């Protein structure tokens, strides 16, 4: 009838032909999308207490009413038949339904008992870049402020930690200096190892729109495999895994040797440093590394780059000198505005901090930074890895403002949390990989996971899955659905999903977004923040968690805001966030404006206004150009394991698939994982499309159907597997190496062999 109405003006149908649920009394409420770090604005339609529709919010400048296929269908997962609605406690190997109160009593008593017997550092929490800001905040307050342990880390360690250390080492402050508006100003987009068409599709649509409507706009895809992004790009350049380090240095060589350096900018606003080299890969338990910065000068940096002359690095990069020079010419042309975008290709990297530094080097040498259209832009994967994990600080070393190692930061936390200063420990304990190693060793005897599925998403899951099943560790899992992680739990707590609770998220462009609860959660499912508060109260910390059930997210946010008060990170007040489609921090309350471009005194009032640029994260206001060399990956293809394995996502599925595989249309679109092979490799091995093959590494084996000439095509000698499928656990084969600085694992490079199954 809708189609008829659109074609034939004035057509009418009898009232009784309209079904009851088309009466039009749908209430639309705004919020951010549940899925990726783009942070699209959505409007959720509710009717008679149910979420019945989703559309893009035209008032949100992020997406201007557009969503991707996951966004449009997100609410459908909540009607899945196996939704967790009751707490479950494992008794004699079987899960028994329990009241939520009893389950929370058990969680608190187990936590207390473990602390009394084995000490504060025997309990841990593992949260998420998909936790809301209030959820992350109360977890941090409980662990660091109440119990007094730094055993809190999160899954954002697996996705954004290298981006964070890249920011901190180059600029002294986290998160991008630009915003999505850069897209509409840029002439050139260089995508460094990220399949943006599938992973940040709405932003990619904005780039395509820019290219359609303006002259002289180019998209360059620099990647290790051919994807939908490559096909849409103006130029696709394939490089050998790990070669990005050398490519970035080679571009810097070209900038210097062609006289394309913005000397004035470099002199006034940067310094040069080098760090340690041969820094290891984190493969051993209790691996420890501390970098040491040494100042160098421009001439020393130039001399270092001699080894990265484009023709010298063709072999290790797999990229011709001609293409490297082409890339350099785009960055070096003062008339072209350039945005570099990256995500997991650079972050999930055993030299992730380094490669982040190196791309910043390119923008700093040319002065193409902190201006509309000139932007090195680290894209975030999860919807609130910025807002929750990084800004609230749900990492072992972090506090809501600053780090545990800093006395002033501990004093501030103690003051706001109203706890004794001495209670907050000064030494970080376990990052994510080390946390699960500690579970395996028996050092951690209680772990509570929220909003994450580590039994699918950790690297080398076939070590950490048996670890979590050991009797030595009591496992509590909060989730919306049963997962392989809840399968190893002693207690399962039913969590409210997204629009079933109020909350706030922070996206890639520093935009904080708020939403009100729109529908009730089913059964006993409750917000994670509330369950944390209830456990805290049962542990005797009720005075530190005086929040109301009805309004706790507002009360928590107002308390949390205090940590970021000040010109450099002020968060918008709740009344603004309730009205608008978010606000970008630093938020200037005097003018009601967001700060779109940081460190540029024209746009950022936090700058020293006597300078054109002020990188105020650093005490001297100068950004750092880092000398970082190429170092190989820890495991390189050889005769026994001759293929590179890269893992990642597809547009239809979010992460470990616990939500999207329960949405019929998304599940039907991509019902299972697969292994992409180059057609020549497949032919040589006699493997046909969809034939079952084994992906075998030194860690384990995964059986998958082959995908040849379908969605993506890896280069010869490489294979790609999406990790959304819990029935085809590719992380059983991956390697738990990590960047020694960020501690972020490398999911993009290990060695495998392929055999017919």
């Amino acid at each position, binding site marked *: 009838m809708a189609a*008829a109405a659109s074609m034939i003006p004035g057509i*009418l149908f009898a009232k009784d032909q309209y079904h009851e649920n088309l009466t039009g009394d749908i209430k639309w409420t705004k919020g951010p999308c549940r899925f990726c770090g783009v942070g699209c604005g959505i409007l959720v339609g509710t009717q008679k207490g149910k979420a019945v529709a989703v559309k893009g919010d035209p008032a949100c400048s992020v997406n201007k009413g557009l969503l991707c296929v996951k966004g449009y269908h997100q609410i459908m997962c909540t009607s899945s038949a196996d939704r967790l609605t009751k707490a479950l406690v494992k008794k004699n190997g079987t899960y028994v339904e329990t009241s939520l109160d009893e389950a929370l009593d058990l969680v608190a008593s187990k936590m207390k008992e473990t602390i009394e017997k084995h000490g504060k550092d025997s309990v841990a929490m593992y949260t998420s870049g998909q936790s809301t800001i209030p959820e992350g905040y109360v977890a941090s307050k409980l662990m660091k402020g109440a119990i007094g342990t730094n055993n809190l880390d999160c899954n954002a360690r697996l996705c954004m930690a290298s981006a964070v250390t890249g920011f901190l080492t180059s600029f002294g402050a986290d998160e991008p200096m630009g915003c999505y508006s850069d897209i509409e100003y840029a002439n050139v987009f260089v995508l460094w190892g990220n399949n943006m068409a599938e992973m940040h599709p709405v932003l990619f649509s904005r780039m395509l729109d820019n290219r359609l409507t303006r002259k002289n706009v180019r998209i360059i895809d620099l990647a290790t495999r051919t994807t939908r992004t490559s096909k849409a790009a103006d130029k696709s350049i394939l490089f050998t895994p790990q070669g990005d380090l050398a490519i970035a240095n080679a571009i810097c060589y070209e900038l210097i040797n062609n006289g394309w350096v913005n000397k004035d900018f470099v002199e006034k606003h940067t310094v040069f440093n080098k760090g340690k080299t041969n820094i290891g890969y984190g493969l051993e338990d209790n691996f420890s590394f501390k970098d040491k910065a040494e100042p160098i000068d421009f001439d020393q940096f130039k001399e270092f780059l001699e080894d990265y002359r484009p023709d010298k690095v063709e072999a290790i990069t797999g990229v011709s000198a001609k293409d490297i020079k082409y890339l350099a010419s785009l960055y070096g042309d003062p008339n072209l505005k350039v945005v570099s975008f990256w995500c997991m290709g650079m972050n999930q990297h055993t030299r992730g901090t380094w490669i982040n530094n190196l791309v910043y080097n390119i923008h700093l040498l040319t002065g193409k930074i902190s201006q509309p259209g000139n932007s090195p832009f680290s894209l975030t994967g999860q919807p609130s890895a910025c807002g929750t994990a990084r800004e609230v600080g749900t990492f072992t070393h972090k506090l809501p403002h600053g780090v545990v190692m800093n006395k002033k930061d501990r004093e501030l936390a103690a003051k706001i949390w109203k706890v004794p200063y001495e209670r907050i420990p000064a030494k970080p304990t376990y990052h994510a990989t080390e946390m699960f190693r500690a579970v395996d060793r028996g050092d951690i005897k209680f772990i509570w996971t929220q909003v994450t599925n580590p039994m699918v998403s950790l690297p080398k899951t076939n070590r950490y899955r048996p670890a979590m099943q050991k009797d030595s560790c009591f496992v509590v899992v909060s989730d919306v659905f049963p997962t392989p992680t809840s399968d190893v739990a002693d207690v399962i707590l039913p969590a409210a999903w997204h629009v079933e609770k109020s909350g706030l998220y922070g996206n890639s462009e520093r935009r904080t977004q708020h939403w009100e609860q729109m529908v009730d959660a089913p059964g006993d499912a409750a917000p994670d923040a509330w369950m944390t508060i209830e456990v805290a109260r049962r542990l005797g910390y009720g005075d530190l968690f005086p929040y109301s059930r009805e309004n706790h997210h507002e009360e928590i946010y107002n308390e949390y805001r205090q940590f970021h008060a000040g010109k450099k990170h002020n968060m918008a007040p709740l009344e603004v966030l309730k009205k608008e489609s978010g606000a970008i921090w630093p938020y200037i309350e005097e003018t009601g404006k967001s700060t779109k471009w940081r460190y540029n005194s024209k746009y950022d009032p936090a700058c020293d206004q006597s300078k054109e640029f002020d990188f105020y994260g650093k005490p001297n206001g100068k950004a750092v150009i880092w000398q970082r060399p190429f170092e190989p990956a820890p495991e390189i293809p050889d005769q026994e394991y001759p293929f590179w394995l890269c893992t990642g996502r597809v547009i239809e599925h979010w992460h470990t698939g616990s939500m999207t595989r329960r949405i019929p249309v998304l599940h*039907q*679109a991509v019902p299972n994982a*697969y292994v992409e092979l180059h057609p020549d490799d497949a032919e040589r091995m006699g493997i046909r499309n969809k034939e079952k093959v084994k992906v075998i590494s030194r860690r384990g084996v995964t059986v998958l159907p082959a995908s040849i000439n379908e969605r993506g095509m890896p280069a010869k000698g490489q294979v790609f597997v999406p990790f959304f499928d819990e029935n085809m656990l590719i992380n059983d084969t991956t390697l738990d190496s990590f960047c020694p600085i960020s501690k972020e694992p490398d999911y993009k490079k290990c060695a495998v062999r392929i055999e017919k199954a």
Partner: protein
Amino acid sequence: MPVKSYITFPQPGKKELLIKILQENKYCEVLPSVNKDIIVLITDTINDEQEEALQRTIETIKEIEHLTLVSGFNDNNPQEHDSINYDNE
């Protein structure tokens, strides 16, 4: 099997007769407009054979001047569904 919807234009003067004919078919739901000579027709069959038979039946109805397919939804069992090949888009 497919649930399909059509905009159906009857032959001049044949709207009421067409409504009656279509309503007699158990695989058809009929939603006539109250002010135009247009009928929205929704069909829903159980398997391929029924769908093909229904198509042949509809093709023989002389009272239909024009039939426009608006949408279709395939209700196949997901286990039997092949991954879609996007390569030739």
